[in-house]
């Protein structure tokens, strides 16, 4: 393994450098952005695979930047945990491009932000330095603000602004937390910190630092009640961008939070810290419940899925709480798997939603009526993904939930276990709503519930009027409106790649449902290292 330790820095530097290419080349050529992004992210994915093959066979890969020792230098670490996240990020980043080629957004600046975002996310996953983590959090955030703001209309600008304010406050909170910890220990390297923190003379500084970090990440991961930026950001971002943001941005933050808990502060130290476990558990459990309730009452599909993310990340945070409270390896496995699984599922779901919006302009749950007959493949894939999200086996969603729930049971945290088991039902509440619309609601009946007034008096049936002999002006207009909505496919074609990527994600979610044992095995060395 001669040069394998060069891969981590390359993974970060390559996309950031490549981000300049679309703009530079854009001076001369149009439409180079997609090609640059595709070449880069495919390369990144290949590199991530190469890295993974080394990490999972012969242990972690560490690159020390500039050769400075870790007490004051910066390390990039690819271990069993971070490599999994790197695989997810590069995979999703490459996959979403299959959508954006036809589905948009287009333009070279978009792909610049896209690559910048990927670089930032990979940085978050690979860095071994808490201050460096802040830098990458900011790179990610700024790229995300730009991407959200690139949506149409003033709402996108407002959503981006909201995100910018909250996101920056959160990052500052995190930075304050790091400052407190630095005051107490004098180092910023994660491995150094893990030995320095228990030895710190003034634990109150550490506690304060942890408190700031928790609040900062609660915003970044969009935990209730600090989630308010997230639904608008997901909803108002361009359709092609939402899958990327939803799958990766909060996931990377949640990963970073998990990393800080298990590697920096360490489970034993946090377990001894008063109320730490209880606070993390409460944030997670409350978010699971609140997120679902909010998801159920949404009418917009993207917004509903956004609130669903609040509750699903709640599960991950609750799992971290179980790790702290119960010293549970199982719960940590569950958290990792659910992070990756949720990222994958949300990619697919948001891609599906984008596809439907692109072809029909359908954005609300009601407008999804009859989708199964019009777009059987997309509807089927979305159904698989939704059921996976609910946790129906065999699927990645079930595997994550199983380990988290088992961890809670093993730690005898019964209220938490109850919330996790009930989350199945809660998720079902909004998933079934969408499914029922897609499969068991005929399209025409629901779309124009009021316009039927004049004809409904004779008790005649709606379908016949619409299809054969419209007997009034209203009917004709109605028919055209419906045709416009339904027949949009001709004007706004959906490419094979767009459908294929949704199907691939759905199949992947099911296939990974059988990998529960394998992933746990891959994580095993990491788990035994961080959990005593």
């Amino acid at each position, binding site marked *: 393994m001669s040069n394998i330790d060069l891969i981590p820095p390359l993974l970060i530097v390559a996309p950031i450098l490549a981000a300049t290419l679309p703009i530079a080349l854009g001076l001369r050529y149009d439409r180079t952005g997609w090609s640059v992004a595709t070449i880069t992210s495919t390369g990144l994915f290949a590199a991530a695979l190469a890295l993974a093959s080394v990490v999972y066979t012969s242990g972690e890969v560490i690159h020390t930047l500039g050769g400075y020792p870790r007490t004051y230098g910066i390390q990039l670490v690819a271990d069993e945990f971070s490599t999994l996240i790197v695989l997810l990020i590069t995979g999703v980043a490459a996959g979403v491009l299959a959508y954006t080629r036809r589905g948009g957004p287009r333009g070279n600046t978009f792909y610049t932000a896209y690559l910048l975002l990927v670089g930032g996310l990979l940085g978050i996953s690979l860095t071994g330095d808490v201050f460096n983590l802040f830098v990458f959090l900011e790179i990610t955030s700024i790229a995300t603000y730009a991407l959200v703001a690139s949506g149409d209309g003033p709402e996108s600008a407002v959503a981006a602004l909201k995100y910018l304010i909250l996101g920056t406050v959160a990052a500052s909170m995190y930075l304050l937390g790091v400052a407190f910890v630095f005051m107490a220990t004098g180092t910023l390297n994660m491995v150094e910190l893990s030995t320095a923190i228990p030895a710190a003379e003034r634990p109150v500084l550490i506690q304060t630092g942890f408190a700031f970090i928790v609040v900062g990440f609660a915003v970044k991961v969009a935990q209730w009640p600090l989630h308010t930026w997230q639904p608008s950001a997901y909803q108002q971002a361009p359709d092609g961008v939402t899958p990327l943001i939803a799958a990766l941005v909060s996931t990377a933050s949640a990963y970073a939070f998990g990393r800080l808990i298990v590697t920096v502060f360490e489970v034993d130290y946090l377990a001894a810290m008063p109320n730490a476990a209880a606070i993390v558990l409460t944030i997670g459990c409350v978010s699971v419940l609140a997120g679902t309730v909010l998801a159920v009452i949404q009418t917009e599909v993207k917004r509903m899925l956004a609130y669903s993310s609040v509750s699903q990340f709640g599960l991950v945070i609750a799992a971290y709480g179980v790790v702290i409270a119960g010293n549970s390896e*199982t719960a940590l*496995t569950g958290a990792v798997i659910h992070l990756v699984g949720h990222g994958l599922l949300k990619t697919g779901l948001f891609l599906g939603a984008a596809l439907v919006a692109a072809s029909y302009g359908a954005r609300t749950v009601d407008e999804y009526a009859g989708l199964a007959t019009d777009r059987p493949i997309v509807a089927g894939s979305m159904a698989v993904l939704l*059921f996976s999200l*609910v*946790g*129906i*086996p*065999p699927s990645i969603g079930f*595997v994550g939930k*199983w*380990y988290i*729930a*088992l961890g809670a*049971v*093993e730690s005898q945290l019964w209220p938490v*276990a109850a919330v996790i*088991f*009930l989350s*199945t*039902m809660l998720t*079902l509440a909004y998933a*079934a709503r969408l499914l*029922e619309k897609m*499969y*068991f*609601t*005929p399209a025409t009946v629901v779309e124009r519930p009021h316009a039927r007034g004049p004809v409904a008096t004779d008790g005649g*049936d*709606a*379908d*016949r009027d619409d*299809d054969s002999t419209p007997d009034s002006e209203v009917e004709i207009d109605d028919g055209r409106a419906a045709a416009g909505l339904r027949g949009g496919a001709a004007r706004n074609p959906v490419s094979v790649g767009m459908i294929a990527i949704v199907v691939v994600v759905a199949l992947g979610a099911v296939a990974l449902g*059988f*990998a*529960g*044992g*394998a992933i*746990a*095995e891959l994580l095993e060395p990491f788990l035994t290292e961080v959990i005593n």
Partner: protein
Amino acid sequence: MVADIRPLAAVLVSAVAIVLIIASHRRPNLREGWSVVAALAKFGIIVSMLPAVIGGTVFEWSLYESTGIQFLEGIDFALRADPLGIFFALLASFLWIFTSFYATGYMRGLDEHAQTRFFASFAASLSTAVGIAFAANLVTIFVFYELLSLVTYPLVAHNEDDEARIAGRKYLTYTFFGGGVFLLAGTAMVYWLTSLVEGGPTLAFEAGGMEALAAAAQAEPVYAQAAFFLLIAGFGVKAALMPLHSWLADAMVAPTPVSGLLHAVAVVKSGAFGVARVILEVYGPGLIRDLPLDVPGIGEIGLNIPVAIVAAFTLTAASIIAMRKDHLKRRLAYSTTAQLSYIVLGLSMLHPYAIVGALFHIPAHAFAKLTLFFCAGAIHVETHTDYISEMAGIGKRMPLTMTAFTIGAAGMAGLPPIAGFVSKFYMLIGAGDVGGSYWLFAAALLLSAVLNIGYLWPVVYTAFFESEDRHDAKPLLEFPRGGVVQSYGDGSDDDHVATDGGERANGTEPTDTTETEDTVVDEEFEYAVDKYPSDHTGPDDVATDDQGDRVSSVNHHGDHDDHLTGGPPAAGWQRHSPFTESTWLMLAPIAVIATGAVVLGIGPDYAVFLELAIQIVEDVFGMPFEELSTVPFDELMTEVTE
């Protein structure tokens, strides 16, 4: 334990059929052909394992051993054809053969929409039901249990109207609450409990109970009890134990083949089957009896007693509710609720005879209830009649169907020549042998038999012994609960009072109004009977129809809560011979299944199910069946524990 691919093949054969069914959606004859081929193949695979299983061999296929993939850490995804598994798989796959013919006749007779989805989901349901049968551990059974809920949902919501959607919602809510919450929680707890002791963690079924769990239960009795009730509640939802039963009656909006095979056999029995797995092979009778549950005021009782009480209550209450249901399928649904509780009650009495009775009741009830549902469906297809009050004199229109119905009804009540008698007999012996408070359960069984006659005999009576223009009022249906309260001294009624109490105004009035409504309705909706001709010249002419856009046409012949569609035509029922009353696609399955119910009742020793049931009990108690009757009950229980 012999490694063999056949358990997996039995599960997958209908999964493969799903693909073929969807692929041939433009050619209905080919599509239905795949259903039949898959049903025969599945049955063939299962039968091929039968002799060896009776001989004591257990076939197992494990994902880990065949591919090296571990499903979850420490948990294998394994399928195992043991006696209990093959018992259920054999039943479901055998009945599927006839149901696929019947479903073809039914769906074409009504010219239903989305038939491809229907047949695909049907095949998927059978795949998962056999998966439940062969599952070798709690996680595997959970996987198939959840998938079964999932694939039957499209069947329940098939009609795509509000009623069907609401029923579908309720169905998903109940079944996922049972599976995703209770069953998963119970499974996780068992995994955790067994991880505390040597030999664990394990979730694999063992005849007579998991040893690791028995050891863990000594250390953590409270959690072991909680896990037991979680598992029972999880399976109890599908077994329609009260108070978790109400999805079943609502699910009757589904097409009748679904109500018949799935909501009388495969789905609901998978719940009862799960209860059997939990009682016999997870906890084991000995452990269940020995885990003391401290009830204030009564003292310590076995874990089985609360389950038995719930089951006894359910079977009595559901029978009473059934009496007041006018919709035939709903009445049958409550009857199913009651009959499933027989199975749960028999299992929870823990006595070997009661267990044999309970297990044998699985096929006994399946054959009889499937007959009843097939008859209800045939009546619906031919006459669009769903309500019992409109069935007066229907016996001359559908003689064979109503004869089969009579056989099924007798089976429900447990009358001797029919299979239901054998199972009830064993259960009564079991209850009597234990004695003591178990006599109460015996009493519940006997009372329920009477109630069974009370709600099914009126159907037979009205079909054969009444005619459309001359029939009695249905006091249980039409009068307020508790009867009519009326004083003879009431002044307003003076004119009508006859000294012999006959011909009272309020007795005939409801009948009159119904009849007038019927006449009016029949004029308007006469096409509801005639539009789809009663007698099919052959399936082919229907097959050419485009079945895509039939949503509007199902609106008036679905299983709705209206009296608009059914009842005799204006000129009264036409008289038909048994061979012309319906299509052979429906009559043949009815005849075969009804015959099956009689065969099981006359010669249970020769039909394979009783033999398997006895073998299961022998495995659980670890001694030959003949010796079981000589050992006292308490001693038997302690021997299981050791």
